[in-house]
């Protein structure tokens, strides 16, 4: 481009510019601490305002769908932990449920109750983690420490159950591997009794905090149409005025027996999403109290089964394997060759803490799925940044990424 030498535009002897429209391309990430993982954003800026945003993903791509096509169904279960690693039991569960629908087995009630407890603990863990990291991004260090402290208690409970803190693999196709430990209910109850006071603490720190409000209110507003068009789900969708919760609308497990509300807002901005997360934590606590009662009823009624009975697809309980020849043979075949579900396909959505987590499985009757598609909510919650960021300023990028609650294990799979 021709450079006109005058007093206002600086002239450079040996540099020629392709464009002189003052546009700056800023490369945000992939190692930016508030990119929540490996997100690279190419931001076209006019001054500090974003005119074009181009999210670039794939830095954590491990080819999980390809891996699934070359593993027997039970082998894939620990891999699902690595999707949304903040709430890994919900991935385990989504996959287990999809396979259960494919092979059409019914899970014993006690296992269902344990699964629901695990799912809701995972939801709390995920929401607390979200609150901690988002608050930290915006500068609220205290909330980060508080929320991580509470999350630690939950991780202790989960660790007592399955031995792992982050990658649980706590759910099996057809049920759960273990009954909850003796201290589970008492620890959970202690935690839940404290939780309202804890949530109150966070809200006292944030709700009327001037900095928090300036960074959150009227920032990152997603309209209802935009949220639907971009395939948003979970809190992202509920903050934009659609009261859609799969636990409520298409109930799985025993969610139809439980009373809870679906908080939603029609604001669609960062603050609405923050409020949704806080309210959801309260609802989750409500659900957990009810599941604890349900568990105690199961114990009273003497329901002890934890795995579905379906010899063709699911191994017998350990005591049978160790005492009965046929169970041992069947277990041997299932472990070495894997189960062979019927020919057909399912798409099963579940409400993970991030949104609609769906598993599409196409089975051709073999021990490996012919095609497995992981529908991870964060994938589209990252995509929406393309349309959401233009018009905002650089500091807003951080708070918007924060409230979209994207996890890159899930985006890149």
């Amino acid at each position: 481009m021709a450079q006109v030498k005058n007093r206002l535009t600086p002239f450079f002897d040996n540099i020629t510019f392709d464009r002189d429209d003052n546009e700056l391309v800023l490369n945000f990430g992939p190692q930016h601490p508030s990119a929540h993982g490996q997100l690279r954003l190419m931001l076209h800026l006019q001054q500090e305002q974003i005119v074009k945003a181009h999210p670039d993903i794939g830095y954590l791509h491990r080819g999980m769908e390809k891996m699934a096509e070359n593993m027997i169904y039970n082998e894939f279960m620990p891999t699902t932990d690595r999707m949304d690693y903040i709430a890994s039991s919900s991935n385990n569960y989504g996959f287990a449920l999809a396979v259960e629908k494919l092979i059409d087995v019914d899970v014993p009630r006690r296992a269902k109750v344990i699964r629901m407890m695990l799912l809701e603990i995972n939801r709390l863990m995920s929401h607390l983690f979200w609150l901690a990291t988002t608050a930290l991004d915006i500068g609220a260090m205290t909330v980060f420490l508080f929320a991580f402290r509470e999350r630690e208690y939950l991780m202790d409970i989960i660790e007592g159950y399955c031995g792992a803190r982050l990658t649980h693999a706590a759910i099996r196709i057809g049920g759960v591997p273990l009954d909850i430990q003796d201290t589970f209910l008492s620890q959970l109850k202690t935690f839940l009794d404290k939780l309202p006071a804890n949530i109150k603490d966070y809200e006292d720190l944030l709700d009327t905090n001037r900095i928090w409000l300036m960074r959150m209110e009227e920032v990152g507003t997603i309209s209802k149409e935009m949220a639907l068009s971009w395939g948003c789900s979970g809190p992202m969708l509920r903050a934009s005025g659609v009261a859609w919760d799969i636990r409520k609308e298409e109930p799985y497990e025993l969610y139809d027996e439980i009373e809870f509300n679906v908080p939603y807002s029609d604001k669609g901005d960062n603050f609405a999403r923050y409020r949704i997360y806080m309210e959801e934590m309260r609802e989750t606590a409500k659900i957990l109290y009810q599941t604890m009662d349900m568990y105690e009823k199961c114990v009273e009624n003497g329901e002890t089964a934890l795995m579905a009975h379906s010899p063709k697809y699911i191994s017998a309980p350990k005591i049978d394997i160790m005492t009965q020849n046929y169970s041992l043979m069947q277990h041997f075949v299932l472990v070495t060759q894997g189960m062979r579900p019927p020919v057909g396909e399912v798409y099963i959505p579940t409400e993970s803490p991030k949104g609609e987590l769906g598993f599409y499985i196409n089975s051709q009757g073999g021990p490996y799925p012919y095609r497995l598609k992981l529908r991870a909510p964060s994938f589209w919650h990252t995509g929406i940044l393309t349309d959401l960021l233009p018009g905002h300023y650089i500091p807003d990028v951080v708070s918007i990424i924060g409230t979209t609650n994207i996890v890159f294990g899930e985006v890149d799979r």
Partner: protein
Amino acid sequence: MRAYTPKDDVQAKAYYTDRYYVAPQVPKQEVETDEVFTADLAAIKGKFDVKEAYIQVKQMVVYINANDIYGVLELMRDELEYTQLSEMSAIDWLAKDNTFEIFYQMLSMNKRKRIRIKFFIKKGEAVDSVEKLFRSADWSEREMFDMFGIEANNHPFMKRILMPYDWQGNPLLKTYPLQGDEFAAWYEVDKIYGKEARDVIGPENRDPAKVDRYDSERFARLGHEVPKGTKITGNEPRVEQTYQEEGGVFLVKKFDKKSSVIVDDPQR
């Protein structure tokens, strides 16, 4: 006779299948068993050619012609209240009949129903982009292009999304090698040092479990440790194993149960 392994499908295979085994089917129901789906299907049939339709695991599956996809999805969004495209991707049937099966997973929140729209295309054909109807298809179609090499007509930015832009091959094809191919082994060497450095550096090790006992730069054999970089002939001497604590390490004490406090309640 030697087992025949087709070259057009390198996926893991079951090592044993009973020759009389007939796989059962996930049951399919008639569309007429569900009122909502019957009405939806009638609306689609009114304007477009429907090849097959059934209900499987509570969701309707509709097979249509490949070039009707934009029209069908527009009809579903505007008239049938299917406001969200949850998911779309492809299935590789190249080994069977040289086709891809494309599926679109639709959700109606008002009706609480899900429909899967499907069609087949031949290899090398493109699909019509539905990005104008559902913005979510922007990324889904890019992912499909990345993973299967299926292009979408009228897509605003048909580039790879998960793999690097200059990657060769489409990972989810059944012909894609599982252990990393020739190109993958040289990818980083070529990229960082250039092709001429291939002789110096050698191919990348694609086997994560590989251990070379003669490589004393990166591996140490327990019990036979030698200084780093020593040339190993195979007769390295046995090294006695000792624990650090026995010599006494500054600040590290042995655990004494009697003088320790054990906290029972983690939420103290």
